[in-house]
């Protein structure tokens, strides 16, 4: 398959990724069934991961790696977990992308990587204080369209 990212885009991303502070692990979950965007998404994320040494990339299958998908609460394909990594230790911050991050959402992918790399949500102190005290899980699903 032809490369999805052109040299110009790669150069721009290289510039932003030069500031990455800590390693980020990208876990892609695909499916062989009814997933028209799985191949493109896998390739796109793989190309992004190749841009910086701070990024690692792994490919999983929703069916054959069902236990891992369940562990990370991934129920859609293509699904992407953007996690922190220290050596072999993966820390999940709960950041997920479901569907292809193309168009405007490509920026979301890049921003999410930077956010996780910085290990800082950027939220204000009151928000942090409240969220720290949560005793039941919260799922925020942000619906977007790529255009």
């Amino acid at each position, binding site marked *: 398959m032809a490369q999805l990212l052109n040299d110009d885009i790669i150069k721009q991303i290289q510039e932003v990724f030069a500031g990455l502070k800590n390693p980020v692990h990208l876990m892609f979950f695909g499916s062989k069934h009814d997933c*028209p*965007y799985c191949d493109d998404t896998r390739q796109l994320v793989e190309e992004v991961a190749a841009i910086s040494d701070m990024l690692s990339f792994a490919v999983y299958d929703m069916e054959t790696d069902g236990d891992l998908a369940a562990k990370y*609460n991934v129920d*859609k394909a293509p699904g992407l977990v953007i996690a922190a990594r220290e050596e072999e230790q993966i820390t999940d911050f*709960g*950041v*997920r*992308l*479901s*569907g*292809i*991050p193309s168009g405007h*959402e490509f920026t*979301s992918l890049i921003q999410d990587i930077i956010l996780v790399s910085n290990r800082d949500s950027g*939220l*204000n102190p*009151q*928000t942090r204080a*409240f*969220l720290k005290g*949560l*005793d*039941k*899980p*919260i*799922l*925020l*699903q*942000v*619906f*977007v*369209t*790529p255009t």
Partner: protein
Amino acid sequence: MIQAEMVEATEFPELSMRHGVSGVPQTTINDGKAHVVGAVPEQNLLAEIQRVVTK
């Protein structure tokens, strides 16, 4: 405790329809307990989360 998931609406039409997504971005909290339409300020989203967890 918190999971934040970007969902590409056109690829998951059943879920989008179930949550009545008509404009984007829409943030749905805990599978439909609350919906926030638009890119709202942080405190507005926080207020909605607080409403969901306290009710």
